[in-house]
Every structure is written in structure tokens, then in C-alpha cells.
């Protein structure tokens, strides 16, 4: 029972922390983000495992994590409100080449982040070539080029 309670508490805490920290927190795969992710996973592992390093305990932890995750995804399918509460909504941050500054500031995104995604894919050189940029729920930036940019349809950034 202790393992199940630990997993549920840890899942809820991580969900809360990453929702509060914003969409972009773990979306950037910089070297330091990777280190941060490793430190967080190591800390989480120690709190979950405690002194019990048995296979039974490990099975129970993994099973509970998967059950909570699948259970929540089923609930999110049925409830749009819950889906938004847990995963947020996408946000338009560039419209017809014009950065929407207030939204970008609130999400801690700057024009260089948008251009990094735009350069990577679909290979744009200037912000004017961006018809729309969307900060997705995952924290990634999706860029839709203008028709004049001579490129086809939207492509996924990082």
C-alpha cells in the first residue's frame, strides 16, 4: 500500500510542479535541461524506492505509475476541462510575422526561440516568413510559413 501511495503522491506533485512551471520548462533539450531531468529523476527514484529494493516493490511502483497515467489519459478523453487542466492549451505566439510580445513574455519565449524552430524546420530565415507560430501543449514551437516563403504546410519544430 505504501508504494501505491508514494507513486500517486509523487505523480501528483510532479504534475503540479511542471504545470506551475510552464509549458517551456522541460521542452528545451539543452545540455543543462538534460542534467536537470537526470537530477529530478534520481531524486524521485530515491524517494519512491526508499529502503525497499525488492523486485516486488519495483513491479508495484511501475505498475502504479502506468495505471495512474493510463487512468488519467482515459479521464482526459472524456473530459475536455480535465484535459486542459492537466495538459493546457496551445497558444498562438506569432501572427503574420508579428510576435505577440505579451504572450511570449508570459510563456518565457523570445523571438530567437521561434526562429530556432523556424530555421530547423521548415527552414525559414526571417520572422517575416512566419505566418503563424504556435506554442504547443508539449512546449514545442510549431511554425507555419507564409505562402510567399515558398514552402509547403506546417512542420513540427523541436
Amino acid at each position: 500500500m505504501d508504494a501505491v501511495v508514494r507513486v500517486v503522491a509523487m505523480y501528483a506533485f510532479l504534475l503540479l510542479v511542471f504545470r506551475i512551471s510552464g509549458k517551456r520548462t522541460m521542452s528545451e533539450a539543452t545540455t543543462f535541461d538534460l542534467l536537470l531531468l537526470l537530477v529530478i529523476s534520481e531524486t524521485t527514484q530515491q524517494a519512491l524506492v526508499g529502503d525497499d529494493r525488492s523486485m516486488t516493490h519495483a513491479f508495484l511502483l511501475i505498475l502504479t505509475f502506468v495505471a495512474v497515467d493510463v487512468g488519467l489519459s482515459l479521464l482526459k478523453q472524456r473530459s475536455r476541462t480535465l484535459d486542459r487542466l492537466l495538459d493546457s492549451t496551445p497558444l498562438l505566439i506569432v501572427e503574420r510575422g508579428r510576435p505577440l510580445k505579451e504572450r511570449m513574455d508570459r510563456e518565457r519565449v523570445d523571438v530567437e526561440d521561434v526562429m530556432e524552430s523556424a530555421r530547423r524546420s521548415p527552414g525559414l530565415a526571417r520572422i517575416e516568413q512566419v505566418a503563424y507560430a504556435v506554442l504547443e501543449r508539449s512546449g514545442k514551437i510549431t511554425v507555419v510559413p507564409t505562402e510567399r516563403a515558398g514552402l509547403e504546410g506546417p512542420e513540427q519544430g523541436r
Partner: protein
Amino acid sequence: MASSGESGQRPGDGPPPGVQVDQDMQFQRREWAVQRIGWVAGVLVLAASLAGALGHGPLSHAEAEGLDGALHVKYERIVRSNRPVDLTFSLAAGTGNETVLWLSREMMERMSVEAVRPEPVRWWATPARTGLVFAHAPDTAPGDRLAVALRVEVQTVGGLGGEVGVEGRDGGVRVWMLALP
């Protein structure tokens, strides 16, 4: 934080024509407001933690003394479950060759004693108390202070209260700890 009038829908809040994106600015503004509150709450928790509200800090340190001054105890008011914590005692030596420090059963039932310094010469237990018997050094005079340290681990989560005292002296000292998970 959201400024006034941000809770409602504004011109330009909807997605532009031709772009299929499930944008909801009303929800987004609420989310930003909640995030800011969450940041403040996080900072407050960290500040409280530095002050010892989650253990190991000035707010957590506690001391208590018996009415007759025979026992003085220093302990942590806020501890972590299953993590070692020290209780340090200063006892007034009795008239014989030994002094007994006792802990009430309600304490012993919910924590384990991992180490005792100095080692007691023996332990005893009654239904109400567990006693640790310490031998005096040859030059110990009655009333001299003996220093004893117990390293314990609280096995449960929540409040833990109990009494500690010196055998043969009136009353005990009430100790209360909060064990965090």
C-alpha cells in the same frame, strides 16, 4: 499577474481564420494567474524550509527542561520519517553509582533507537517506560551533569508525543515531534 479585464474574451483572442488551433485565451489567462500564484507559493515553501519549517533549521530546534532541572533535552520539533535525528540530554547525576534516563512507551512504540552515546550499562522495560542505565565515572558527584545523546528514527508519519525523565526525580519532560513523510 493578470491585469483587470483580462478574465473576459478580448478582440483577437480567437485563432486567426484558416488556422485550426484549440486556443482558449480565457483559460490561458487563468492558467497564467494560477502559475504566478504557484511560483509565489513555491518561494514561500522554500523560505519556510530554509527557516526550518520542514525540519533541520531554527524553527525546528526545540529544548525542554523538567521542573526540578534534573533533565534538559534538545530535540527537533519537525523530523522526517525514517531518517535519523538526535535527541541530546543533560541529566543531573543521582546519589548512587548509576543514573537512569527513561522514555515513555508512547515514544518507544513509534521510534527506533539507532545509537546511544555513551553506551548504557543495561536497559530495562516496564509496561509504561523504557529505561537506559548509565554508570557514573568514579569522580562523579551528585548533581553533576551527564551528557547523553540518542540517535533515533521515527517510524511513522504525523505527531509523536511522549515523556522523558530521570528515574527517581519528579515528573518528566513532555516532548512533541511532527514526523513528515
